[in-house]
Each structure stands twice: as structure tokens, then as C-alpha cells.
């Protein structure tokens, strides 16, 4: 829903910048540490209005009378609000609103889906019939019939994400004023010539009903403050960017205020300026101390994606790829992903995280589960269709065969499928900080913030940049480095981890733009991380002359 909006030329540039940046991250000092964050009290979500309920029922009835053995109907409304600025001026203010209804059906073990923006009973019934027709047309290509694992019926439940101030209640003047003040602070630094900044808010209302009798109504808000600061050498021989300054969160305007863009922008501007003078890195093997504002993205790419069960079984082979964590029967309980103190949790419950939801898009209440337990692969991300594929493992482990609640659709006009929950590196037992880990390191490089990132379609070989890079010598942070990227092989990388931070050092990073599926859908997801040290990682120098 955010793409292909050429008219909004400035927002199109914005979208490109967002896509390029992929995600913004925390830096130390911002009020994003999960451990220190007190959950706000959200007002309760309103119950479902009777008109919406009628539409949901109409869709279910039409699907069932068309021959569906299972159906779910989602009525969704998604609003977005953007304010963009550059340097001392506004670029654009944009408010978007999209509402419609999507119907998914199972007919004779085959999926069908159709969606309409026309919010009348006849239109919703027509969409249901179209979904049935799509399923019937695909029957000829069916293999094994699709079956869903049982899930408890959820009766008329409501849920609302953790926000105290709805961004739509804040005036455009206040939003613009905050950005322009932050821009001015950043521009005080030497050679800082250009700033791009923005605020990006999403508000979603999601109503769901299934033919099994579940019905949920949810409201969620997401907020993302953006800044990219560009320093240009006076002789035009070089330019350097400092971006991805704070992460997006599943919270409201109060989060934007906590980020203190105005208070931090001066420091970020200085860092952009300092990058012009930074020493190019010498290639070689280094011990890397990775800040949570950086490590979240490495977790996303090298743990989050390869443990998606549909991907592991070839369902995303034509686009996002498959996984090295396959086949499951050779991996579960066997693959040593990392050291014994490595525990990776999947959940949709962390307060303020982007993937956090009361119920998923097939009416399942998600649970918290360990994807990696004591360094060993323990589970995958699943939906109702997929959980059955692992029943042998759950039986063996004396665990219930259930969906982990990872079904999600970008909007009413997309079919739901398995998407990433929050996937996080849990803190170690010893309470130690980023600074403590640097102090314990004789020679290495510390990386803060996420930068360039690329990984192969099975998630083995990856290359990551960052925002700022610092030499570590004798346990102390030395001068700034530039043109740093590390290349790694996923299992070797995680098994080289030898120190991790404690509870107090845990922070959320995340992205609005996790892409998967055909047609492509985006998913917003957070990753909690603690700082960690990785031994003897291959570092390359990315600087080159044109």
C-alpha cells in the first residue's frame, strides 16, 4: 500500500530512502532500552461495530454456501501519516487511508483469496464467491489437501497496542516543528550540508472472523522517526551519511518524544562530520563488538528468515529463497546454531515491539517460543497450516502441536501467510554492558547502527555494514574507522560469539519493511538484542574510487 504512489513525488523519494535504509536503529542514550521501559496503559480497544460484524458474517456465509470448508474474513483500515523535511524546510505532509475486506477460503483442500474495497454486503459476498472460484480453479494443481491444526475459538476479543498518544491527535505544526529543530541542531556540525528527516506513522484497525467462530477486533499504532545527515567534503572529494538513528516502534507519539531527536541530532551531525575524517579500515580478521542497534539486523537476516518454516520447506523458493536450516528433521534438536548461552525467542508479546499483536490473522493467540534453546535449534515460526508439519517433533518433545500465531497480512488486500514474529537474542545471565564487553576486548572493532546488508537466499553468506565504526585497542574505544563491512557464514558467525550483555543492555531494533511473498508484502518486526562479541570475523574495506 505504500508503493507506487508517483504523485507524491517527495514521498516517493522518501519511500526509496526508506527502502534503502530498510530500518532505523537505536543508539545508546535514547530511551529505547526495553529493560527500562515501563509499559504505558492503553485505553481499551472499542468493541466491533455492528456494521463491520455484518460484513464479516456476510463474507463467511457466502463462502460457506459456495462450498468452503473453512473461511476467514478480515475488514481492515490502514492509515498512514508522513511529514518530511529537508534542512530548514518542509517537503510534504501526507495522510493516507485505505479500507476494504479480504476473504480467504479453503475449498476441497485448496486456498482461494479475493478482496474488495467496496464495503457493502453484496460486494463482500461477491469477493467471497470470487475467492471460492479462485480455489476451485486451482484444484487442478493441488497436491495434498491443506489442513489446519486446531486452535481455541476466540469469542469477540479486543486488543490494542501500547500507545498513550495517538499520533493522529498531534498537529502537523508540532510534527514539523520537531523535525526542523532537530535538523537545525544537526546542521551545526562542520561540513553537514544536507538533512533528510521525517515522521512516519501507521494506524491499523483489524477486524477478523472465521468460520470456526473466532472473532477479534484490534487496533495498533506504529511510529518511526527518521533522519539522514549528509556531510560533504569542502572540495567535493567525499561525502558521508549518518542515518538510521532510532528504531521504529509499535508505540505512539510518546515514543517520538522519548527519542529526543532535538537533543541527539547534534551528536549525530558530529558523527557524520567525523566520518569524513575517519581512518579507512585495514582488511583482516577482527573481534567485533556489535551494539544492539546493529545486531538486530544481523539477527533478522541470519536467524529470523532461515527459521521461517514455509521458507525451509520451499514455499518461498521463487522469491525470498529457501533456508540452510532444512530439512527440519535433520535440524531440530541437532543444529548447533551458536554457543550454549545463546537463546533466541520468537514472540508477539513484547510491549512496544512491531510484531506484537493480541491475535494473528487466523485468530490464533500467539505464544512465546524458543527458536534456539541453549544454542540448539528448537523450533520454527509457524501458522495453522504449517504446525502440523512438525507434529512429529512436538510429540517427541511432549509439546502441543499448535500454531505459534505467525499468520499476518500486510493489509485487507493481501492474503495472510507466515510472517516473522519478534525474534530476539535473550540477555545472558551476567549483567554486563556494551562498555564492559569493549573493556574486555584487546583488539577489535565496535559497530553501532545498521547500514548496508545483504544475504544469500539460503541465509549462509552475509555482508553487513553499519553506521559508525570504532577501533578497539587495549579495552578502549579509539578513533573512528570508515568503509567497514564484515562478511560471514551464518553458523560460523554465531558459534564465534563468546560474550553477550545482560538484561540492562537489552534493546529493541526493527524494521517497517521486512519483505516476503509474491505479490510482495511488508511486515513490521522488532528484534531485541544485547551487545555481543564475535571472534575473528572477516572485515573488508568497501571504499573505492570512481
Amino acid at each position, binding site marked *: 500500500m505504500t508503493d507506487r504512489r508517483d504523485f507524491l513525488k517527495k514521498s516517493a523519494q522518501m519511500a526509496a530512502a526508506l527502502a534503502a535504509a530498510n530500518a532505523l536503529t537505536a543508539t545508546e542514550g535514547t530511551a529505547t532500552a526495553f529493560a527500562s521501559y515501563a509499559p504505558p496503559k492503553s485505553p481499551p480497544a472499542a468493541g466491533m461495530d455492528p456494521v463491520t460484524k455484518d460484513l464479516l458474517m456476510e463474507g463467511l456465509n457466502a463462502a460457506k454456501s459456495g462450498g468452503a470448508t473453512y473461511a476467514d474474513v478480515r475488514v481492515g483500515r490502514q492509515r498512514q501519516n508522513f511529514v518530511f523535511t529537508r534542512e530548514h524546510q518542509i517537503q510534504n505532509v501526507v495522510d493516507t487511508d485505505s479500507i476494504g475486506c479480504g476473504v480467504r477460503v479453503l475449498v476441497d483442500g485448496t486456498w482461494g483469496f479475493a478482496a474488495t474495497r467496496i464495503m*457493502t454486503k453484496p460486494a463482500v459476498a461477491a469477493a467471497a464467491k470470487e475467492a471460492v472460484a479462485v480455489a476451485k480453479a486451482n484444484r487442478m494443481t493441488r497436491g495434498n489437501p491443506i489442513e489446519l491444526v486446531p486452535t481455541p475459538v476466540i469469542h469477540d476479543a479486543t486488543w490494542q497496542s501500547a500507545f498513550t498518544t495517538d499520533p493522529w491527535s498531534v498537529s502537523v505544526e508540532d510534527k514539523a516543528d520537531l523535525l526542523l529543530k532537530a535538523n537545525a541542531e544537526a546542521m551545526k556540525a562542520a561540513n553537514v550540508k544536507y538533512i533528510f528527516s521525517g515522521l512516519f506513522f501507521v494506524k491499523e484497525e483489524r477486524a477478523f472472523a472465521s468460520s470456526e467462530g473466532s472473532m477479534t477486533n484490534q487496533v495498533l499504532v506504529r511510529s518511526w522517526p527518521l533522519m539522514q545527515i549528509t556531510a560533504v567534503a569542502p572540495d567535493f572529494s567525499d561525502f558521508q551519511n549518518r542515518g538510521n538513528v532510532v528504531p521504529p516502534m509499535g508505540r505512539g507519539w510518546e515514543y517520538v518524544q522519548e527519542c529526543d531527536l532535538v537533543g541527539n541530532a547534534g551528536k549525530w551531525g558530529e558523527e557524520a562530520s567525523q566520518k569524513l575524517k575517519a581512518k579507512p579500515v585495514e582488511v583482516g580478521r577482527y573481534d567485533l563488538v556489535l551494539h544492539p542497534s546493529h545486531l538486530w539486523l544481523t539477527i533478522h537476516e541470519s536467524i529470523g528468515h532461515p527459521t521461517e518454516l514455509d521458507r525451509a520447506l520451499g514455499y*518461498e523458493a521463487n522469491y525470498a529463497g529457501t533456508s540452510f536450516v532444512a530439512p527440519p528433521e535433520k535440524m531440530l534438536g541437532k543444529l548447533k546454531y551458536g554457543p550454549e548461552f545463546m537463546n533466541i525467542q520468537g514472540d508477539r508479546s513484547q510491549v512496544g515491539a512491531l510484531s506484537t499483536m493480541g491475535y494473528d490473522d487466523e485468530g490464533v493467540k500467539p505464544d512465546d517460543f524458543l527458536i534456539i534453546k541453549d544454542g540448539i535449534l528448537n523450533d520454527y515460526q509457524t501458522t495453522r497450516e504449517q504446525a502440523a508439519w512438525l507434529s512429529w517433533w512436538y510429540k517427541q518433545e511432549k509439546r502441543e502441536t499448535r500454531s505459534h500465531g505467525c499468520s499476518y497480512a500486510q493489509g485487507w488486500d493481501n492474503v495472510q501467510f507466515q510472517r516473522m514474529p519478534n525474534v530476539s537474542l535473550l540477555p545472558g545471565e551476567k549483567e554486563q554492558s556494551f562498555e564492559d564487553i569493549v573493556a574486555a576486548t584487546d583488539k577489535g572493532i565496535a559497530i553501532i547502527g545498521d547500514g548496508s546488508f545483504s544475504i544469500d537466499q539460503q541465509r549462509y553468506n552475509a555482508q553487513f555494514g553499519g553506521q559508525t565504526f570504532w577501533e578497539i585497542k587495549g579495552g578502549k574505544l579509539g578513533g573512528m574507522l570508515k568503509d567497514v563491512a564484515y562478511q560471514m557464514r551464518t553458523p560460523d558467525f554465531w558459534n564465534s560469539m563468546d560474550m553477550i550483555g545482560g538484561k540492562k543492555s537489552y534493546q529493541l531494533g526493527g524494521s517497517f519493511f521486512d519483505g516476503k511473498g509474491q505479490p510482495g508484502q511488508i511486515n513490521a518486526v522488532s528484534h531485541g538484542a544485547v551487545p555481543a562479541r564475535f571472534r575473528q570475523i572477516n572485515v573488508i574495506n568497501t571504499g*573505492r574510487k570512481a
Partner: protein
Amino acid sequence: MSSPKRLLVRDDAPESGLLSRDDSMQLIEKANKFSKADTVETQLTSSHTGNTRFAANQASTSGSVTNVQFAVQSSYGPKHAVVVTNDLSDESIQRAVAQSELLAKLAPDDPEAMPPLGPQTYVPVSAYFESTAKLTPADRAKAAATALNPARAAGDLQAAGFIVTSENTTALGNNKGLFAYHRNTSANYQLTVRTGDGTGSGWAAADHPDWNQLDFKAVSERAIEKAKLSRTPVAIEPGRYTVILEPQAVGDLVQLVGNYSDARSADEGRSPFMKTGGGTKVGDKIVDERVTLLADPQDTQLLSQPFDGDGLPLTRQVMIENGVLKQLFYSRFWAKKQGKTATGQPQSIKLVGTESSVDDLIKSTPRGVLVTRLWYLREVDPRTILYTGLTRDGTFLVEDGKVTKAIRNFRFNDSPLFMLNNLDMIGRAVRLAGTEQGGDIVMPAIKVHDFNFTSLSEAV
């Protein structure tokens, strides 16, 4: 839902969801009528999309979606704001106009705001094909069978693919006489076939506005053949190689050049096309003299929209001619500021090819690497358009003019500018189906020397 009224109002758009030229003009006229601002500008799009997805040799998710987008921008002098809705009822249009006026009044001044464009003249492009518009889910399922049947019959092949067709319209208008309308269809097929043992993977694809131009059987056969050939790859050392990039791989890299073609960034000193000491590289030879890179809505391979997001008419625009950077692109504001003509933002890109086939490129190569496609391209250094990414779904060693073996995938760190300087040969240009950025793209296969593979990947 928080706008229950919305749920009771039936808008008057046609049931099919697709907006004709007259529908679009009438709806834009409504916004003009409701407007109290100095200027009101509207972009209106509509689409009907159908898709069929399959994986693990069977259908997975498929669907059909109809939607519209009505985006209205109101301006009071230098103040402006945009409101977007997908509800075309009178009440909704009136609300969107009023809301954009309210936001515009509250917004700070934009010193770069430009006055609206008046009436423009466009050369229409015929990119709408009934063959595509009339498709049914059963037609798509039948096309999918060209991959599923042979893959199942083979016993040790797994097919995963995607067939998507759409009808789309775009209209732009304002209250100063501008009106532009374009409609198109699109049909796209992409297929990945993997070997049962997980050691081989092949990909092929096709794209055209006209469904009848897609040869499903040929695409399916190519992906299957690549999968078989790519089985059990051997590792060769990373390093600098002579590389034959098939059109798909060329597209992913060369398309990036367009992203850096903005004149303003070069003038501001933050572009690969700036010069140390000031000025831009326009007029300089930046790549091999055989390279010509252009955009052209009328090109029969491109058939792209003949206007940009501002409503500026688009015709043939040459960015690089015989290796020389001919122009960078000027927005209306930057053109005015620099005393230049606004160029319009190109909506397509074509690297001019020759008559040579991929086989001709292979035959002329004593030793090199043949690359089917690339994956996960990400900017590493904007100063040189240096990107990293990986090869995927069919990487082969060429020896003495022949493909001799499947090899492991590589990660590369290279720039389309470096690559087009190291050019050995250019092949025939074809329309591409699956670049990471998408769009109307036509590229040839090319052969280049010293392409920089920096590490091996075990991924298949």
C-alpha cells in the same frame, strides 16, 4: 472500524473497479469543484490484479484484488498537503479535499513548491491488451501446469512459481487544466525449479503487457534445464573473473544507475556524477563507448507511461550515449533554480543491445563465469554506486567457449559503472521480468572482465 459511515455509503465507481478515462476525468473534476484552495491536484489510480502462486509442486496461495487510490494535494501558495483515500464516494472526495486543505494551511511554507502545470500534450502509448484483461484464474492455473506437470513427472524436481496479471489505470489532473490518463495491462511469470537433492536450482521468467506474448512452456523448460545443469556445483576461488551476465543480472545492476541520475544530488556534491572541485560529469565519457542507456515510453519493448508523476510529458531521453553522460534529470524546482529545462522523471530504462545471442557471448570466452541472475543487491558505497549481492539459480563455468560445469554461487562487490567500463561484448536486449526494483526494463546480456567476486556462498 472508526468510520462506520463509510461502511454504509456506496460509491459510484464501476463494479469492475477499473476506471475509464471518462470515469477518471469526472472524479478529478469533483475534487476541483469541492476545492477552496489556490490549487488542487489529483492522482487517481485503479487496478484489478489476479495471481496464482505455487510451490513444492502444488498450488499455494492465489487471489484476486480490486482497489483504487485517490490522492489529492491542496496548495495555498507555498503551503501544501496530500490526503489519500480508496473511497470514491462524493462524501469521501469532499472529505479528502477538505482534510488536505486543513493540513496545508497548518503546514510550514515549502520554499520549493512549484506552481501547477497547465494543459500538456502527451503521445499516447498502447499498453492495454484485452488478452490480459480477460484472463480467468483457470487460465493462470493452466499456465502453471506447464511447470507443475513436467516437474512432478520428473520425480526429483520441485517447482515454485508465480503468475500475476493486472489491469491498471493512472490519471492526473488539477484545476489549471492538466489532465493525463494512461492504462495498461501486465502479465508476469517467474519460475524457480530446484532439484530434489537440493543441490541445483534454475530460474526463468517472462513479462509483457500482452499475455499472448508470454511463452509459458519455454520459460518452464528453461528453468527446468537450468536446474538440472546446476546440480552439484563445484567451488572455484573467488576473485576477478571474466563474467557473462544474462540480461536479468545486467538489469539488476544497470537499473541502479537510474537511481543516481538526479542533477540536484550531483550539484550538491553527493552523487557518483559529481566532480571533485565542483561541477558534474555531464559531457564526460564515464563508461565504454558501446554503452547507450535510454528511456522511451514508445519503445515497443518498453511501452511505459508517457508522463511522470508531475504530469510532465515523457518521450525518448538518452542518459548515456556512446559512453558519454549526456544528461542528469532535473525536477521542476531544480530546473527553475539552475536555469535549466525540467526533464521529467523517466519511467523506464533500456540498455541498447546488439544482435549477439548469449551463446555467442559464451562461444567467444576462453574462461569465464556465466551468471543467470543476482540477488539481494544493497548499496555499499553511494559515491561509486558500489553494490554487494550474490549470484543465484544457475552459475556456471565457461571454458573454451562452452559451459563446462556448475559452480557455487559468489558474493560480489562491484559497481555498474566499473562493470560498464570493463565491457567486452553486448548481446541482444530483452524485456525483463524480475529485477529487484521491477518496472519496464529492457537489457542485453553482456560480457565484462575483472568482475569482482569477493566470497563464496554455499547457498543453492
